[in-house]
């Protein structure tokens, strides 16, 4: 159980880091092109999925 939660936590943090990288490469306006929007959607979906796992495991 705890292993699953830990892995979900790290996966979420890594996906958030990918979003952080997008913010860096688009600073200061953060106007995303289509590819960046697609990437952001993918990362956010991963984060949401990991949060669901964390809720399931920890609450």
């Amino acid at each position, binding site marked *: 159980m705890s292993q699953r939660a830990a892995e979900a936590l790290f996966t979420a*943090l890594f996906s958030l880091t990918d979003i952080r990288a997008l913010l860096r490469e688009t600073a200061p306006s953060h106007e995303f092109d289509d590819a960046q929007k697609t990437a952001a959607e993918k990362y956010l979906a991963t984060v949401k999925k990991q949060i669901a796992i964390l809720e399931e495991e920890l609450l």
Partner: protein
Amino acid sequence: MRCAANIDARMVEETAINLDPIQVAGRLTPEAMKAVIAWGDGYSVCDNCRKPFRLDYIQNPPLKEFHVELAEWLGMAQARTVPGARRAFQQVAGTYVEKGDPVLIGALAHYTSYLSVEICRGIVREIPKTADNHITPDDTANRIEDVIREFGTVPKLLYIDHVDYQFGNMHDVRGVTKVAHQYDVPVLYNGVYTVGVMQVNGKDLGVDFVVGSGHKSMAAPAPSGVLAATEERAEEVFRTTQMTGDLTGRKFGIKEVGIIGCSLMGAPIVGMLASFPKVKARVEQFDSEMANSKIIVDALKSIEGTKILSEYPRKHTLTRVDTSGSFDVVAQTHKKRGFFLSSALGKKGITGIIPGATKVWKFNTYGMTKKQAEYVAKTYLDIAEENGLRVA
């Protein structure tokens, strides 16, 4: 926003385009940021340190493999990591320089080069810069002769920056090294602005040591750096301990003296390791970095009264500029005085230039996208025009 009770969350890179001359090539890759999240705890990488208990033998994370690859990539026989380039200078100077020994250093070198000699009580003699701010083989030969006349011996060591931190000019390392070796003077190549941003091969350059900075040019957290050496010099600079405790008889295996055993651990080494594949790849793309640099340099050049003090055309993304005839003229009467420029840049999400600098300042375009380069160039032009400066 705070990340801890009294520590601000640093969001410089997420909210602005950073032009800080010493920071931009040290920005972490996403891979490094992830590795720091996972391995940032103190001694983390030492979990799997087994006999012979040395950092560069650890196999998980693959530090052993990394050290071998690093040396190969730099065209040298062996490589180690160090807590910053200055520690590499210290390690090399500590190996060869004794009290009163002369050491030659290019006149554009960083202060830490000098201090690394001073700590050994050596004596620095400088190779002068030319009128166009270069260190040349001819001047090197003359200064070696000067040292021989003054000290009765050749310099124990010579430091040459490939690209200096003051102008970002590129110096003739191969030529300087050729001269130095004619006198049997070992050469330390300072690649703080080159290792990790452009191709560097110590063997091709003929140097004895290659020094690089992780936090300046290898997308690694500070403090971090690398020291690589030829096989002959590696035996000297990476020598292992011969010490025995006189009461206990204790010995310390293969710990290296110059580095006091192990150096980089935790976040610095794991960040460097994680960035390494991208760093190796990015040096092949230096032309595109120079293209972005040109966009901004040309924009600045087009503002009447602005001079590029670095060599031109540029060969590196670090550039020194003189705006005493342009932005500083505006500063004389602007209500914000010299702070008008940094303030105007800040409002447009551009940072990294020293606040108040309107006379002579440096910037570095490394790592930005073309879109960001165009934005920075346009912003400078807009600020110039808004303040009555003529743009060609």
